[in-house]
């Protein structure tokens, strides 16, 4: 329904703006409706990292796109929190500073959402309350193994 969609749109928009500013320490991002009837219009995302004047989201860098997408996905959770979230190596394109900001936001989100993440990055691993390792001691056969942070770092390196 029109009211329902607009309300959802507005809520996600607010969430996106605030999470984007947190992840980029500034800048702005928002959703806009394309032309035409609200019941049929498409949704565009506009994102401007601090100090930049971008026209198109496509021109953003690999790391900037990943961070913007994280802000968008997490703002869905504010609105209508799915009970859990699984993130598979979303930090791969991020530099060290952005990995820090990303992991801080993940920690905050985990207060209300059960978050499971896969990562090769030590900074991201360090925020986990529980770390679980996957190994293949026998080739081609996966097994779980409990790990602490030091063992996790060794495991990721083996």
């Amino acid at each position, binding site marked *: 329904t029109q009211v329902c969609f607009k*309300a*959802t*749109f507005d809520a*996600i928009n607010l969430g996106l703006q605030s999470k984007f500013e947190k992840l980029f320490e500034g800048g702005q991002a928002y*959703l806009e409706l394309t032309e035409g009837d609200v019941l049929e219009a*498409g*949704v565009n*995302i506009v*994102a401007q990292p601090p100090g930049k004047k971008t026209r198109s989201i496509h021109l953003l860098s690999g790391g900037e*796109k990943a961070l913007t*997408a*994280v802000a*968008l*996905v997490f703002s*869905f*959770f504010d*609105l*209508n929190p*799915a*009970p*859990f*979230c*699984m*993130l*598979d*190596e*979303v930090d791969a*394109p991020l530099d060290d500073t952005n990995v820090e900001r990303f992991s801080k936001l*993940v*920690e905050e989100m*985990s*207060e209300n959402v*059960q*978050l*499971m993440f*896969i*990562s090769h990055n030590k900074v*991201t*691993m360090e*925020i986990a*309350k*529980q*770390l*679980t*390792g*996957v*190994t*293949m001691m*026998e*080739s*081609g*056969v*996966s097994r*779980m193994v409990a*790990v602490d942070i030091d063992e*996790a770092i060794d*495991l*990721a*390196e*083996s």
Partner: protein
Amino acid sequence: MRLEKIKLSGFKSFVDPTTVHLTSNLIGIVGPNGCGKSNIIDAVRWVMGESSAKHLRGGHMADVIFNGSATRQPVSHASVELFFDNNEGVLGGAYAQYSTISVKRQLNREGQSVYFLNNLRCRRRDITDIFLGTGLGARSYAIIEQGTISRMVESKPEELREHIEEAA
């Protein structure tokens, strides 16, 4: 509604019965390339009803059944079971009174899938119904697969609209 554990048996590289225990709200899954981490994500999406083999990196659905290694023979079945803590009664419908809800899917080499809800056989539809309104599902925004994070912001305006409608 927390996910408490995931049991896998014969699913991709998890040939032996394996349990992934999830004991907190912030869980890191780690390990070297190719050891099976993303296969766990595939398993969760599969049991929630993912019906496209391509979206599980396969050509046919039977590709999710362990197909052998240097030391092991292929097996005939794949099975994945998710256990949810439903103490807050989030999952509704007929199962609202259960404190634990389990959803299971089994598959044989003929490509036949069987679904179970708390160990009672059910249809795939019953599984997907259970998650309606929770924001969860095989293609939910809540599961971000490897290499796909940027896709969200590069999607066409009509696709982004769809995502928002789903979240509503």
